[in-house]
């Protein structure tokens, strides 16, 4: 697993997502190595099974964008080849075409996904519940959003339907984006520890690419389920 720029992007407990992925592998006896990738570090995305990209403050985000721009083609290729990616908040926006600021300036993104973001005046903040389909089953996922950007999808599937909260832009009722094995979302919270179905989905996808054919062994998720149910009860 590659965790991009953890020393830079430390907002919103991002490392919780990394912990959840790694722990849930280890609890099943699956070896996992978390590599923390810093600015300028030489890496090949071909070596990664799962890549996590979080969000940061404006300044940090600019540093991250600059560094990733130099790796754009490599990342695009990896995504086309099915690299499993989770991108949240700023990481999500960055994968798109551009971010338009309030005064109309367009900051180019990596252009890997067909989406764009424009700044809104009011920040969209609060608890969110999203219904999404994973492996043909419908699941409810909860998290917390805090973003000024409004993201609009082009020829892309959203991650799910907003049941409570604002989602991508507060207008079209969708949240996040999906392309190949790339999953984007505005939900932090963090997302993976309590939404175990998502976490396990990433593990399963990553293993599948490695030629693994077995089903994932189920774990006791009673704490996680209770945390999700409590929030669903509150906001739905």
């Amino acid at each position: 697993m590659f965790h991009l720029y953890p020393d830079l992007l430390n907002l919103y407990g991002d490392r919780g997502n990394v912990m959840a992925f790694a722990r849930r592998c280890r609890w099943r006896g699956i070896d996992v190595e978390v590599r923390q990738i810093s600015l300028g570090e030489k890496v090949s995305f071909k070596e990664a099974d799962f890549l996590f990209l979080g969000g940061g403050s404006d300044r940090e985000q600019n540093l991250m964008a600059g560094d990733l721009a130099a790796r754009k083609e490599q990342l695009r290729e990896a995504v086309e080849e099915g690299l499993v990616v989770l991108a949240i908040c700023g990481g999500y926006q960055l994968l798109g075409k551009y971010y338009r600021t309030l005064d109309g300036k367009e900051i180019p993104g990596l252009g890997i996904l067909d989406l764009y973001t424009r700044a809104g005046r009011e920040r969209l903040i609060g608890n969110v519940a999203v219904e999404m389909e994973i492996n043909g089953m419908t699941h409810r996922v909860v998290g917390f959003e805090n973003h000024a950007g409004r993201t609009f999808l082009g020829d892309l599937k959203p991650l799910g339907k907003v049941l409570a909260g604002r989602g991508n832009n507060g207008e079209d009722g969708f949240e996040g984006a999906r392309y190949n094995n790339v999953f984007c979302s505005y939900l932090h919270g963090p997302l993976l520890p309590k939404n175990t179905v998502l976490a396990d989905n990433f593990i399963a996808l990553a293993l599948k690419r490695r030629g693994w054919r077995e089903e994932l062994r189920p774990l006791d998720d009673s704490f996680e389920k209770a945390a999700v149910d409590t929030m669903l009860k509150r906001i739905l």
Partner: protein
Amino acid sequence: MIVRFILALWAARLAMFVARVTGRGKGSSLPGKIALKIYPRILKQLGRQIKKGIIVVTGTNGKTTTNNMIAGIVGDNKGSGVIINREGANLITGVTAAFIRAAGPFGGLHADYACLEVDEASFPGVVREITPDIVVVTNFFRDQLDRYGELDKTIALVKDALKKLDSVRLVLNADDPLVAQLGRVTGKPSVFFGLARHPGVSGTGSAAREAKFCPFCGAELAYSYYQYSQLGNYKCPGCEFARPQTDVEGVDPGVDGMLVSCRVRFRQGNMYPLQIPVTGLYNLYNGLAACSVGLLLDIDMDGIRSSLAGYLPATGRMEKFLYRGKPVLLNLVKNPTGFNEGLSTLLSVPAERVNVLIAINDNDADGRDISWLWDVDFEVLSGAGEKFGTFVCSGRRAWEMAVRLKYAGVREETVTVLEDFDQAVRTALEGTGDMSYFLATYTALWPVERILSGYAQRERTLPESVPSISGSVKSVR
């Protein structure tokens, strides 16, 4: 004008009276709100009457403790009246209420000093109305992001407000680069306090570290050691920014049970022993900040030392209770750094086994976003398995807390989730430990404290809230 002023004063007083009689709206911002609505200049009018000095404490953690320590030092050594705002009432409404409470029926004030803790985001608004002579900045950490936006913006707000103050003197934490930079960017005369290197410092920073880059040139700061979080000895490789030379430095710090100590060196000169009945190294920073203010006010070191030696923690700042002869500690947590401080105290308490209660709410005052729990290093608990009898998780986000402990490597069998505070407190107290340690977020603290004081006896009592005139700060000791 004078009519409105008096009207505002009386309306606010009435609201305070109603709150007291009905027992509701305790700690509410309503009286201050009413007063400011009726007469927006009321705070300016009242603040002008302070005769000798206004001291404002801002920053993320340690405001209440530092401000209470300062008020104690000033009250003990300068005698006549000190106005202080009630703990946590640190928005402009709370500051206004403190002045109103101390004012006479026609708005007259007879106080030489005001010691005010002011929320970082409210700081610009408050200092537009009252002109502080000394501003203390404790530290900057990430706190309740969903309310304030990002830390950079908060610091910029404080910075700009400081620049506009004319004859202010600053008391700054030298070990926190985010705070220390304020000396240079504002150009105001500054006194720096900090802790010297000691055997407990660490070579690596924690995950919750905020400042990584030089505020002046953007290069990554190089640290020779860390005290905790981003506090330590730093130097910019790209420009001349570095930890400033300290005026007040704590040497050989020690944490011994419920007492912290060090020797204080003032301006590279004499050393004075200092002891404060509080826990955790971070409280030593608060003590050093208070020392610095005392020295700026020309109070002699002996007077400062004896005030600090008699310091009583306020509600939820490591308050101590006794339950059937076993100690219970209650501590407020509100951000990753404060929580990490709490956990390191928890690991060092002199007990074989500890019952732990963690109460997490997500109301506005707690921060609605609880993702910060994932920036707290709960992993330190997994290594100390035998030390903990039980972990009781409570509050609106009790399950979330249980999930966090699980992923930190705490065994699930030791975790009990009881959202109801009363059940949670009772279960924790009845655990197998020989002491209990309670951690609670802001809005969980009050119910937990109330329930706890029903079962256990408070070891030493400070009145429910800090008195507004500190002639009495002394007399309650």
